[in-house]
């Protein structure tokens, strides 16, 4: 799928769970156990995607943050976005338009002056192991939650180390 400058990107929450730590994104595609990392520039871009950023806004942010030509940022962001879409990690909202709320950009990562072409690292070792197993249910499939519970019996307080 081609991604355009006017499109908005957002994490595909049906397929992927992700967290950012030390400006690096760790993403897991839960349907098959393939997992990914995005370091440095890629981690910064993922944080912008988490804020449902428009591609053009992401390009502007990368250009400003790293002081690189906009043309280069545009090409790199589009290439990464298309790869993320192909891997089903990101959803595209076509032509988000001028009325889309502006994304609140995350702070530039420390030491972000050194630009590196964003790269999606793909790890399929878990997927190989899980290939013969069907997808397991997630806790979200068990919609009932402890808030629905009858109260735990009295006198069953937890004991834990101090």
């Amino acid at each position, binding site marked *: 799928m081609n991604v355009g400058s006017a499109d908005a990107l957002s994490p595909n929450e049906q397929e992927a769970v992700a967290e950012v730590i030390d400006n690096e994104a760790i993403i897991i595609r839960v349907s098959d156990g393939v997992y990914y990392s995005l370091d440095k520039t890629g981690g910064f871009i993922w944080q912008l995607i988490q804020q449902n950023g428009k591609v053009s806004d992401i390009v502007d942010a990368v250009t400003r943050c790293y002081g690189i030509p906009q043309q280069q940022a545009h090409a790199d962001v589009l290439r990464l976005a298309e790869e993320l879409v192909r891997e089903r990690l990101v959803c595209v909202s076509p032509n988000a338009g001028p009325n889309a709320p502006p994304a609140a950009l995350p702070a530039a990562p420390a030491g972000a002056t050194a630009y590196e072409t964003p790269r999606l690292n793909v790890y399929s070792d878990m997927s190989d192991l899980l290939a013969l197993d069907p997808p397991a249910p997630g*806790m979200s*499939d068990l*919609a009932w939650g402890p808030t629905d*519970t*009858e109260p735990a*019996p009295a006198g069953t307080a937890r004991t*834990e180390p101090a």
Partner: protein
Amino acid sequence: MSASGPHATTCGAATPDACAARFGRMCEVFDAVRKRHADHVRVADYRFGGRPVRIQVAGAALSDRVARAFAHLAAAPPESAAPALRIDVWDEEATGVACPLTGPEQCAAAHVWSVDHGVFTASEDGSCIGFCCDGAFTMFDRRRHRIVGCRPSAGRLSRAELSKPFRILLSVWYHDNDIHMFHAGLVARDGLGVLIPGRERTGKSTVALSCVNAGMDYAGDDFVGLRRRADGTFVGHSMYGSACVALEHLARFPGLEPHALEDKAVLYVSDLYADRMKASVRIAALALPCIVDTERSRVRPARRPDVLLRLAPSTLMYVIPRPERQLMRLMRELVERTPCFVLELGSDLASIPVCMADILDRAASS
């Protein structure tokens, strides 16, 4: 609720009432078994994740098997009449009482998944879940805080049932109690624990057994519970007192090898080191095991993204049901707050506990 994945299906008996009725039949049969075989019912109290749990097992041999996996969590009965969870299970062969539900009835639920060589079921509202595997059948009514099940014979338990009884349904109970099952080992010294995450065959069990052999405390080799406290610190809870080690690796522990259950490679660590078992400890460090081609083991600091990259996929994909987004966030918080190390595992087992002591020293001073 929507079922996930191509293997999730919907079939008959979908209503919560139908699930409750099947659960009720299981409870009725267990209660009858308990009365008829009162002399062979063992009632034992434990604390799982710090909460009181009562297990009643009908059948002497099955009772022994279950008790060994949880022996280190034994506790006095709760002050109130009812525990936070009740688990009732009977041995069909020993009691002469068959499961009241046929195979198709066991699998009849609003949602059905094939998982872990068995079938996992859930009622429409998710309040009643079940798991059947190799003829063993167990249901969990989350509203009533009760698990009930039966096993064909204590002599034909699978390795999973021997080492980690009720694991899949208990993971849901722990989740309901704000404790999340992690795919990791856990050892400790002076109440401070080192979490050892990693996939199969990365050395988790070797590290855990080397440490307990050398005098450290033990809380698990494969699956442990973690809870984040209000102050942001993490507590690790032991779930099982067993260890599973490939037979070829067990040979590296001459003192332990004779104690493994024959051909199952299941070891009840609590049988051997009762005084070294820990029910819960504060998490002080994470150690990523990494097998290297050297003699001596070594420790080096780990990058936090690398730790999350190892910890998260292994836990999210191996723990059933999958814990998903909430646990991913919890893991990130754990890694951010906890000193992380790589433990390069050499061939000399004696150097492993030395490294773990070093990790705890470094964590204490960080």
